[in-house]
């Protein structure tokens, strides 16, 4: 089981979903805080889920409020970088770029893939 977790985790790294920041977080975990990474990840997912739904709502409206979208994206990006979710971070950056230029369609095209890797995943902390 642990091996599976490890494998999954490794694949996440390999695919670029996770970066070294995640490793930093893992290093913060110790005996005194045994579930730190798990806690952080959980928090992240909860928060990002909230953000994503906000974003979606904003996107579904007829006219896009790019400023607000940009804000959401910024938040999302911040969370993602803090946790080491590099792909998400990249997507956010691109999304913000789109927002900046007012390219709503471009973002929508990318929405799908993003949702994929933003989801509860086994971060390998909970054994």
């Amino acid at each position, binding site marked *: 089981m642990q091996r599976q977790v490890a494998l999954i985790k490794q694949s996440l790294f390999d695919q670029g979903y996770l970066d070294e920041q995640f490793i*930093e977080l893992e290093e*913060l975990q110790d005996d005194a805080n045994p579930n730190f990474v798990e806690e952080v990840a959980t928090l992240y997912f909860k928060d990002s889920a909230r953000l994503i739904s906000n974003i979606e709502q904003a996107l579904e409206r007829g006219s896009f409020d790019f400023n607000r979208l940009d804000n959401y994206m910024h938040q999302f990006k911040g969370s993602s970088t803090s946790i080491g979710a590099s792909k998400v971070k990249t997507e956010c950056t691109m999304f913000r770029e789109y927002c900046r230029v007012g390219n709503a369609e471009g973002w929508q095209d990318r929405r799908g893939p993003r949702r994929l890797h933003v989801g509860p995943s086994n971060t390998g902390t909970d054994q």
Partner: protein
Amino acid sequence: MMNRGLGSGGGSSSGKNQGGEAVVEMFPSGLRVLVVDDDPTCLMILERMLRTCLYEVTKCNRAEMALSLLRKNKHGFDIVISDVHMPDMDGFKLLEHVGLEMDLPVIMMSADDSKSVVLKGVTHGAVDYLIKPVRMEALKNIWQHVVRKRRTEWSGVPTHSGSVEETGERQRQQQQREAVSGGEEDGADDNNSSSVNEGGNNNWRNSSSSSSRKRKEEEGGEEQGDEDASNLKKPRVVWSVELHQQFVAAVNQLGVEKAVPKKILELMNVPGLTRENVASHLQKYRIYLRRLGGVSQHQGSLNNSFMTSQDASFGSLPTLNGFDLQALAQLPAQSLAQLQAAGLGRPAAMNSKPGLPVSSSIVDERSVFSFDNPKMSLLHGVPTGMEPRQLAGLQQHRMTIQQQIAAVRAGHSLQNNGMRMPLASQQQQPFSRPQQSSIRQPMLPNRSGFSGRSSIPESSRVLPTTSYTNLAAQQQHSMAFSNFQQELPLNSFPLASAPGLSVRKPHSSSYREDVNSSEAGFTAPSYDMFSSRQNDWDLRSMLSPHQDSQAYSSSSMSRNNNSAVAATDHSRNHHQQTPQGMVSHHQVYGNGGGSSVKVKAETMGFHEQYSNQEDLMSALLKQEGIGPVDTEFDFDAYSIDDIPV
């Protein structure tokens, strides 16, 4: 998790004050950080990271809440870290508010690394701008901003160091402490009441202030200012024996006349030491040297030893706090050296042994003094010439010192050392050793007492003094070092307990054991004090018979230190040991060895009075300054072989 952010406000930082002492010691641990970020993930990660850095963290996910927290607890935080983009208030606005109302350093952070935003941070007065993801390394160094800010704030504020200096935590502590300790010092110009100064910084400062009072006036309180400023977040620089030795070596290399703080600093190459620290120390040292030159009654060497002893004593003195360093000061120069040794030993003893390293280092240096008893190292400087009245005074101080020592010990092992000195010096003040203190070294704030002593009454009784001078010369550095060392440890958190004092023990076994330990590191100043005391005593006795002086001083010092313990031993040792030339540094301290027996007797008597290191210190001080204290300590005939400690 959200709760954390919400609830944490207010809770974590309050404990600082109480834990002041501990905090002070661990600087930068204990730094009180307020983190503001609307992102809960980030907030949690930051909190965890900061906790790992041993900082005290308070989380906040709303800027308004953060502001109210800050307002409610004006001095509850040392630094604020805030996100740039927040829903309820712009991060920059918060930055402005904090800067205006609380004048705390604020660090901005964001995932946004565009130059314009960073520039905005700078123009709004942020002390730093971190890009997310924030890494541990970046957080580890945030304390520098606190120190920097304090330095600029206090840089011209001489005295009143107590309240201003040190990081907020310390401040608080100090203030509290000061209030509590009140006026251990006579002048208590510093808030840092010598007594148990919380982080020893206070003590050091106080003592230094007392000792450096003169200096301050001379320099316009520059010392204090320096100390304060430089100690902002850093604990006062404790000029342990080692450090002092380094200092002396650097000075000698450059030439005493030509030595300038900057070059000395470079030569010493001690991280965390500022030019101001060196400058003030140099000043003290110069005064000390001058004094030595003047007090050549006994012997020029004595002066040296005196100096050293002074240093030592200073170092130890601080710990002694209660020591009547002044009294010691009165003692002839010789005694001074002894005192130093004692002082050094004291500090060590005072502190709880761990600080011994300082003393030991001193010992090494002291060896120069050739204390018979290596143990004396620290207290070697105890001026044998403790005058009766001084002795008496010492006694009194002893008690105080003891108390102080105990207090100090409690505070921080290392820091205490440094602190002790101040404490001791403070106490010494009553003895009016001003001269001595000023000499020696900035480090010996306490020394001030010694400096007075340096005048070292040449009285024969002071035999040890003579030895002191000898020793002092050599030991000076060591003493100073030990003192410094002690102090050093105090300052920087990394204080790793005085380096190397461990040497102390080598002293003749008899060297007060306590002293030995003290030598090791001022942390246990008590030891040093004692040992030095004893040494001093021994030295003193020795001095008369021989000029081993150094050995004497050490012995006398040591004697003083552990008057109770090895007092007798020392004296014996001293005699026997005969200035072996500082067998192992320790000797310096306590060596006065056999010859110093006579002196020892005197000192011993003295020592005994001090039962505690503190006492020794004071005794030393007294000796130096007090001159024949026989009467009280029954030194009458210097024939006190072993002061029944």
